[in-house]
């Protein structure tokens, strides 16, 4: 209970601070804030074991943090520093931590589902007990390569959980204008069980994910979870400058009324909550200090790691 709160709070505050660093220019290029969707990453990752793997998205900080990556190294990555998770080579949209089974955020919508499926299949064929979780948005439900992945996973009973974060929009495109039929019906049609979950409540997400993970580990194949949520902030920080009109202010305030941090926070005593909040702040203070103090990579090594054998 406290752990889930710590995670959602950590993500929220990380993102709020990251937005500040975008404003101040320490983070170049902007981010896709995860604010409002924290319960999903928290619930999903809480159900994973140490050998499990995940793939993430352009809106991936929450997934990476919930999986336990060092906030200092994630922040350093966003700042393009050598101490970053990817040594400053990936940035926000590619954060990865293979030591934790984080196979990377992916900047191509819909691409990661089949990568996660392959990784989970491989692990099983190597006799490991690995389950993969793969995050994607409602927009990705229209990408053919993701739909193809549903088929491969269901056909070969691959231990993968498809986590759809339905935040109502793909950039400015409302779900209702983009998706014919329904999200879960689409998943079920590929022969896997699909459930709609309250994506604002980390405990609900955890519960559904526990069932899905158990199913996968038992060799019974993939599960699809549609986590209904709302993006509280901009699609991307560039939207803080551009005026894009696609959501009404009423809608935004209704959406924000069910805040995962509040929902989970309400389950703690005020004292416990305050303690966690303080813990998170000092963790993030330290992270910022480390990140800001980290070296920039050497431009002469711009193509290091281009090939496996070196540049």
């Amino acid at each position, binding site marked *: 209970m406290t752990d889930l709160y710590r995670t959602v709070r950590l993500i929220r505050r990380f993102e709020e601070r990251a937005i500040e660093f975008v404003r101040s220019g320490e983070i170049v290029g902007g981010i896709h804030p995860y604010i409002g969707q924290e319960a999903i990453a928290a619930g999903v990752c809480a159900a994973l074991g140490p050998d499990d793997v995940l793939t993430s998205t352009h809106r991936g900080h929450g997934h990476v943090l919930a999986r336990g990556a060092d906030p200092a190294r994630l922040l350093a990555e966003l700042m393009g520093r050598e101490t970053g998770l990817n040594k400053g080579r990936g940035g926000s949209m590619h954060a990865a931590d293979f030591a934790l089974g984080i196979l990377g955020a992916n900047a191509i919508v819909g691409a990661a589902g089949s990568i996660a499926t392959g990784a989970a299949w491989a692990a099983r064929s190597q006799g490991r007990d690995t389950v993969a979780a793969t995050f994607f948005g409602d927009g990705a439900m229209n990408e053919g390569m993701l739909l193809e992945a549903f088929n491969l996973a269901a056909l070969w009973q691959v231990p993968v959980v498809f986590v759809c974060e339905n935040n109502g929009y793909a950039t400015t495109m409302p779900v209702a204008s983009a*998706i014919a039929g329904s999200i879960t019906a689409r998943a079920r049609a590929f022969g896997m069980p699909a459930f709609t979950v309250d994506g604002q409540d980390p405990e609900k997400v955890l519960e559904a994910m526990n069932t899905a993970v158990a199913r996968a580990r038992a060799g019974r194949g993939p599960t699809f979870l549609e986590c209904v949520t709302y993006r509280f902030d901009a699609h991307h920080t560039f939207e803080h400058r551009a005026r894009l009109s696609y959501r009404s202010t009423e809608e935004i305030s209704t959406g924000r009324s069910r805040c995962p941090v509040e929902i989970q926070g309400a389950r703690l005593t005020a004292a416990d909550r305050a303690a966690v909040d303080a813990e998170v702040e000092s963790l993030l203070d330290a992270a910022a200090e480390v990140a800001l103090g980290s070296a920039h990579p050497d431009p002469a090594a711009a193509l290091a790691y281009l090939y496996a054998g070196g540049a």
Partner: protein
Amino acid sequence: MPKLSYLKALNRALGDELERDPAVFLLGEDIRAAASNVTAGLFDRFGADRVLDTPLSEQAFTNFATGAALAGMRPVIEFQIPSLLFLVFEQIANQAHKFSLMTGGQCKVPVTYVVPGSGSRTGWAGQHSDHPYALFAHVGVKTVVPSTPADAYGLLVTAIRDDDPVVVFAPSGALGVREDLDFGTLAPIPLGEGRIARSGTDVTVVALGHLVHDALAVADELAGRGISAEVFDPRTVYPLDVDGVVESVGRTGRLVVVDDSNRTSGFAAEILAVVAERCDLAAPPRRVTRPDGAVLPFALALDRAVQPGREQLVAVINAVLEDR
């Protein structure tokens, strides 16, 4: 005279063509809200049937455009990021491009593919920073990379009116370029005609898109040191203005190509090849390009290091002039 930005020139070209020809329509992601600003105001002016917001289904909507073109329309697709062209490579190179020959000339496929913000957009990193114009040139799809607002307008208009598929790359480094001009002079520009952006006598610098502006700045700088560099902007990558390149290099006798894409079998390689076939050079030609296999690293200094820069260009021009 009013100033026109490159981005606004694209917007104007789209508006003018939508106005002029009822067969023209736009499709793409977030073009209603105009997330990239290229389609700003067009939904309000032309409505939902002519400014079609699509789901994230690049492959299907690219073929959808081909089908609409077969039925007499002139679709214009906006792609938010250059790597989406990788995703639809089959649909352009193997479908749209091939219908005319395969059907024995029964049909045509006048689709325009526009990528506003190609190349590196600061901070968008590995999967969003490519400049794959050479790929389309290789397969024979008409490909343009305008460098100025007037060219952006004129080449986009021509692309839309062309009866074949045309890819238009608008480099992110050029989107902010502004030009003083009389709007009445905006006009279609034929594909395959390059332009001497600055004349000179000592060396020909072939540059494309945003790099034309870098090449011009470098030429200015060198002029101060008594070096006269000609800057040739082919504008169209395919069909290429081979005669224009050859004419310029024939006069200067020296060649440097600056190209914001990978070296092997890229745009610069083709320029060197046609010049080798047709010109006598006073010194070996040189390419200033991204390194082979380049993946743009995120960190700003690394991102910059991978792209061709002005200092590099100066050094290479000097080397070519000293050679022999």
